[in-house]
């Protein structure tokens, strides 16, 4: 720990506080790619030139550099792109600021005609132009009588459509430039989608040449694109370095590597930080990190671009580091010149930790004892105590109950009780999370005798099970791939229906037990991929299809893969979900939406959490303990000048409104008036409800999920006017505050003074004593009122309506 502290301190000393790129001399130049081959006259290569590649003053010099081909009979350079002229080899030189860099190019088979490849070029061109996107001709019904498969996921269908539909009226093989296919997107002919092409640009040329060549399908043996790589993979640009040329290299099955930049589509994960042009130029829009996603048909690659600006007055103050979580978070903050907040106060910590672990407010006794505790380990002691308490299991089982759709409409009134109880035991005993997932996925038998089997009661078919399982345990939203290959991700229909094949044979039948269902594995039943008609084998993502012996439960094969230590999804998904619950925001956010275009805000941190989770045998308690003992968790929610705008790097605690159940329970605790729920005994807390109660306005308004979706997003965290009305003059708050059985009346009856009652209120609601000014304000109000009881109720109402009460901070 001390070592890391020292390391960070050294870094602060060693690195210059600011550097203006504009003023920086060019000390070195580098061309990328440094060596490449151009095959056929149609080939080309985009170059990226980097100045000072090893220095903090690094910047992209692609636009500024002057290029020269040493043999223009072999290759020429125009606008940073190398074109072939004749077979041979030569050198391309880039010069800037008196520095030179060179790349070696080999040109082959210039005289040989290389036809346009439909599968890898035409479809990519259509995709780049946006013709086959969901809002245009890629929609299920097409547009203007012209339908393409979404982003080219069905090449056979597209070829048929383009070549044969309406007697091929969209193309003119003799005069390709007269083809509707070109004239419409050029807006020479009216086009609802506007202008999508520019003449003589690569996309246009590909389409025109393909038509001219007779709109042919590719010949057998044509090399297939295996992967693409976006260069540079990561870059940190400071101050005036405000752009970066990207290059996309395509790797083909014949071993060739070709520039596919012009036909690649690009997206930025954060347009407020970085924008990206169609020609792969990234431009600074703001300060921070952005991931640029390159999509070439169903192949994807990303580049992490960081734009930094030195901040005036910024002086890194190395915080005390408690553990690896801190090292990794503070390393990132240091890199981004974000100063973390100070540690939160003890009372803030106690309230935060208690709410995070148990969903309730600390009791007055807990608060008093903690605030009087002067031991250094008091915070970790609280974490341990709460983790060992049943209240932790009550609250965290609620989270799982939400996600696992524990509602009586799906599971019956008996089922929700039994399933919730099982979840309680899972959390209480700290069942390894991989075992938990395995038990759910392979559950069988009576849903009453084996409540885990309710997973299969909530999921009624393999489609639901596929989407639910992927989102819950892989952190992937794979729904799109049901109808077409995922437009923004690598997941295909084969992946989707391959997972479904693992879940197709789940049988369900009624038993003689009331409200019971029996889950079993059938020995027949196959899933057919709807587009290809192919019978699907069980498919494990990134691994491929597997043969499952006939007598084996296919779910078990999937579950074994899912929960193995080597699985690339499960531990990441779960660790991120836990981090998100504790910290108020996932490292990947939303927590169940992992994708290349939504990268983690701190990959090293996520990796560390994954390692911790796996090493602890998937102990949720261990991971929570690790996170909560970090300084990062215990940072104040008050921001400073240098983390004002940080929302994703955890430089301060994330304030968030109490959830519906937390809030209602907290109001009950403060007022001393419990809520009554139909079908539940007196004193039941909202976090213990096994089923969202019908018609409970307060809980609904504050976003309690109905448990119909396996998505964290079902719990609404949006503020709205109804919430304000509920708090200001809603019946729940009003009746509880005014109740004669409530705390105010009780304390008055016990002879407590106004000051004592105000103190009790603050301790109960905010886990702290009131400040003297707060005392004064409250006492003044009471003194000015005719009715002491009503005045004290007013004070309670005011406390309940304070942000400090309503928010976790």
């Amino acid at each position, binding site marked *: 720990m001390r070592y890391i502290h020292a390391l960070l301190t050294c870094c602060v000393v060693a690195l210059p506080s600011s550097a203006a790129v504009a003023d920086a001399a060019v000390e070195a130049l580098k061309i990328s790619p440094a060596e490449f081959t151009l095959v056929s006259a149609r080939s080309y290569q985009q170059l990226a030139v980097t100045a000072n590649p090893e220095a903090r003053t690094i910047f992209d010099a692609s636009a500024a550099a002057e290029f020269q081909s040493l043999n223009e009979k072999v290759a020429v350079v125009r606008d940073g792109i190398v074109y072939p002229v004749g077979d041979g080899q030569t050198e391309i030189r880039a010069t800037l600021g008196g520095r030179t860099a060179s790349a070696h190019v080999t040109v082959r088979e210039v005289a040989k005609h290389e036809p346009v490849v439909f599968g890898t070029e035409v479809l990519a061109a259509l995709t780049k132009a946006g013709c086959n996107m969901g809002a245009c001709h890629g929609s299920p019904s097409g547009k203007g009588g012209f339908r393409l498969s979404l982003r080219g996921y069905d090449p056979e269908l597209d070829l048929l459509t383009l070549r044969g539909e309406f007697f091929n009226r969209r193309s003119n093989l003799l005069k390709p430039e007269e083809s509707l296919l070109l004239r419409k997107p050029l807006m020479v002919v009216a086009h609802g989608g506007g202008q999508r092409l520019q003449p003589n640009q690569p996309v246009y040329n590909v389409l025109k040449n393909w038509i001219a060549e007779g709109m042919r399908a590719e010949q057998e043996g044509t090399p297939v694109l295996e992967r693409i790589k976006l260069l540079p993979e990561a870059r940190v640009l400071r101050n005036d370095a405000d752009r970066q040329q990207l290059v996309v290299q395509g790797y083909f099955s014949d071993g060739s590597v070709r520039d596919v930049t012009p036909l690649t589509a690009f997206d930025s994960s954060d347009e407020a930080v970085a924008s990206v042009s169609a020609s792969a130029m990234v431009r600074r829009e703001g300060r921070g990190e952005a991931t640029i996603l390159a999509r070439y048909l169903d192949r994807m690659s990303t580049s992490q671009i960081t734009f930094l600006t030195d901040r005036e007055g910024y002086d890194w103050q190395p915080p005390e580091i408690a553990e690896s979580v801190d090292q990794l978070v503070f390393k990132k903050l240091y890199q981004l010149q974000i100063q973390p907040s100070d540690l939160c106060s003890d009372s803030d910590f106690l309230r935060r930790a208690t709410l995070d672990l148990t969903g309730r407010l600390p009791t007055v006794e807990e608060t008093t004892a903690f605030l009087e505790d002067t031991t250094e380990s008091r915070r970790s002691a609280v974490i341990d105590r709460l983790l060992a308490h049943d209240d932790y299991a009550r609250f965290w089982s609620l989270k799982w109950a939400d996600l696992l759709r524990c509602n009586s409409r799906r599971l019956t009134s008996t089922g929700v009780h039994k399933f919730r109880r099982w979840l309680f035991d899972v959390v209480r005993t700290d069942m390894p999370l991989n075992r938990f997932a395995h038990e759910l996925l392979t559950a*069988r*038998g009576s849903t009453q005798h084996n409540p885990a089997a309710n997973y299969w009661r909530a999921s009624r078919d393999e489609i639901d099970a596929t989407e639910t399982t992927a989102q819950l345990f892989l952190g992937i939203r794979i729904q799109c791939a049901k109808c077409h290959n995922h437009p923004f991700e690598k997941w295909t229909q084969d992946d989707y229906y391959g997972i479904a094949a693992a879940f197709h044979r789940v049988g369900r039948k009624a038993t003689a037990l009331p409200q019971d269902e029996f889950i079993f594995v059938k020995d027949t039943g196959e899933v057919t991929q709807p587009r290809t008609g192919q019978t699907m084998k069980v498919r494990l993502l990134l691994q491929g299809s597997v043969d499952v012996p006939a007598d084996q439960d296919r779910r078990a094969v999937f579950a074994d893969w899912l929960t193995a230590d080597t699985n690339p999804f499960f531990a990441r998904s779960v660790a991120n979900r836990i981090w998100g619950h504790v910290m108020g925001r996932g490292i990947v956010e939303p927590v169940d939406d992992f994708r290349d275009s939504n990268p983690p805000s701190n990959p090293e941190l996520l990796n560390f959490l994954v390692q911790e989770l796996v090493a602890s045998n998937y102990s949720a308690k261990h991971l929570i303990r690790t996170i909560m003992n970090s300084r990062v968790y215990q940072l104040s929610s008050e921001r400073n000048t240098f983390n004002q705008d940080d929302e994703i790097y955890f430089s301060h605690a994330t304030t968030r409104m109490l959830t519906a159940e937390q809030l209602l329970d907290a109001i009950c605790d403060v007022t001393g008036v419990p809520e009554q729920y139909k079908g539940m005994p007196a004193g039941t807390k909202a976090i213990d409800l096994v089923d969202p109660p019908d018609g409970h306005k307060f809980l609904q308004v504050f976003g309690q999920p109905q448990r119909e979706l396996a998505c964290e997003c079902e719990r609404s965290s949006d503020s709205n006017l109804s919430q304000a009305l509920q708090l200001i003059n809603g019946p729940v708050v009003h009746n509880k505050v005014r109740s004669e059985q409530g705390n105010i009346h009780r304390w008055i009856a016990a002879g407590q003074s106004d000051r004592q009652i105000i103190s009790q209120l603050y301790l109960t609601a905010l886990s702290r004593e009131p400040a003297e000014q707060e005392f004064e304000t409250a006492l003044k109000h009471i003194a000015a009122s005719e009715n002491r009881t009503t005045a004290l109720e007013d004070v309670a109402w005011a406390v309940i309506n304070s942000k400090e009460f309503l928010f976790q901070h």
Partner: protein
Amino acid sequence: MHRTHLSAIRLLSAALVAGSLSPLNAQAPALDRIECTSFAPNGSAKLTAYGKGFKNILYLWTPVGRIPYQQTGDKPSETEASFEGTLPDKAVPGIYEVRVVADGGISAPHFLVADDLPFFTPTDKCEADPPTTILPVACCLDGHIDPLKPKRFGLSLQQDQQVNIDVFARRLDSRLDPVLRLLTADGRELAFADDTPGLSGDAQLSFTAPTAGTYTLELRDVQYSGGGTHYFHLRVGGFSLIQGSYPRRTSIADNVACVGPDSETIDAAVSPIGTSLSGAAVTNSGLGSGFAMVAVAPGRPALEQEPNNDRESATPVATDLPAVAGRFQTDGDIDWFRLSGRQQQHLCVTAYTRNVGSPADVVLELQDASGKKLQESDDSAGHDAQLSVVLPADGHYFLSVRELSGQGGGSWTYDLDLEWAGRTEVTTTVDTVAVPAGGTATIPVSVNRLGSSNPVELTVEGLPDGIVSVPVVVSDKQKTAFVALQSTAAAPTAFHHQLHVSARHLHSDRKTPVLFSPPAPAKNAPVYELPRLRTGIFAHAAAAAEYSLLPDVALVTVEPGGEAKITITATRTGDWNQPITLSSAVPAAELPTGITISAPEMPKTTAEVVLKADGKAVPGRYSISLQGTLKKDKTTIVRPVPTITLEIRTADEKKATEKKATDE
């Protein structure tokens, strides 16, 4: 049993009950629950029944004797009745079927635990938190749970003291789905039990106190529901926890293995409790007994022999063996049996699992010697699984038994009936029958045949004096039959009697009890059927019916091509003077081959029914069940005619019989 068929007979019997028996049984007490302050084998019995329609209560019937009614208060209550007496020496711990018997009828059965633990009677409702009632560490108690009001009891335990807790609810037909929790004084949960395997939804747990102190035992419904039908019998002590027996069906006096929580077993002898139910008790001296309920079967089944997880190691089954039993020892266990059969033999295999308390859901598969699957069965209507196969050749056959979900454990047992000449199952949905003075009542039965076309004869045993019943022959075509009970002048004015109807298979002379087949369970009704596997039917006297019908002959003989005439006489009471339509009680299609019945309307007191036998009539003995239907305004009254025996004889047979009679 085929559902449609079963439904038909239920409808038919419902019509009969609605039309004729219901008014006669209108005063039958309706029971909600019975709570015992004592119900000890070989000891005192002190109970209170709760319900409605309690009028002129006589006694509490138990399989081992009557417990007399004790009036409490100045006048009898219509909702509460107390009984006090003793249970005889032969009584053993277990679940007992009991009924409240009143002048006006007999209640539906209720199930109680006869317990050798001391009964505890709380002085409050045991709902306070923390509990105000401390339970002795060895005790049992009866009670019921009100909605949203868990029961809470204190348990004072020494450090390391172990206590076993077992709650009976579902096993007693209670609506309570019980959950047990043990908590520290400050509310921290230390133990929890729900749906213990083998207990049909009930719960039991074993707890060792980590420190000396008072712990809270909480008992509640899993979803906090409650009411008078949510009753329970709670046991606390050092007795052995039992989760079922192996086998679960066997003969009286046999030994079974009582299965404990960790699949450990203790052998215990099977003692009779009722005619169809017995108990196997493991008694620990001074600590009370743990017990399992066992269904009475004619003989001991052969037990599977592990390893038998494949065909090669299949457990051999002797030819014509009537029953085998086994259990799924571990998850994924499959048991194989090797059978030897003959061509055209009709093999029926019937599984008993959930209905006798096992958590298993079996799948049966029969293969021939080459491994070809002949039949597979998961669920069969009315049974867990059932195979019915005509064997294609002489030779070996292999029967595999597996748990549908692949689960296993000590209590995951199964029992199989093996029948080698098809199966004839005779059941009734009637539980009580009111016999009107001077009249006739009938017990409708349903006959379900699987590969068996042989006739059966139904006889009644245990008839009270003055009540007669003619054996009923059920022919191969018949799916429904009616056993008539006729009240003669010698019948007492009041009686309450348990009868048993038996089916004698005429081809083999084998006798099997007619089982009670409960109507389709009501929503949320428990499914533990073991206590309900009963054969007894209660008959009691009733006032004279609106009318009664009597034939002039009990036996008629006809030759093929001939006919017989029967005069039916009606005795009417009150102003039930409307015409009576006579008809066959069974559908025409189920009458013996070649027989038709011509039944006219009876305007006043007599009518003549003609039985015709055409040339296709097959000689033999048959039973004819007739009935009358009277309509008055919107009321329809259906009354039976006592069974008429029909003999179809050829002329030669007739002559020989007459000669024999003359000679004698």
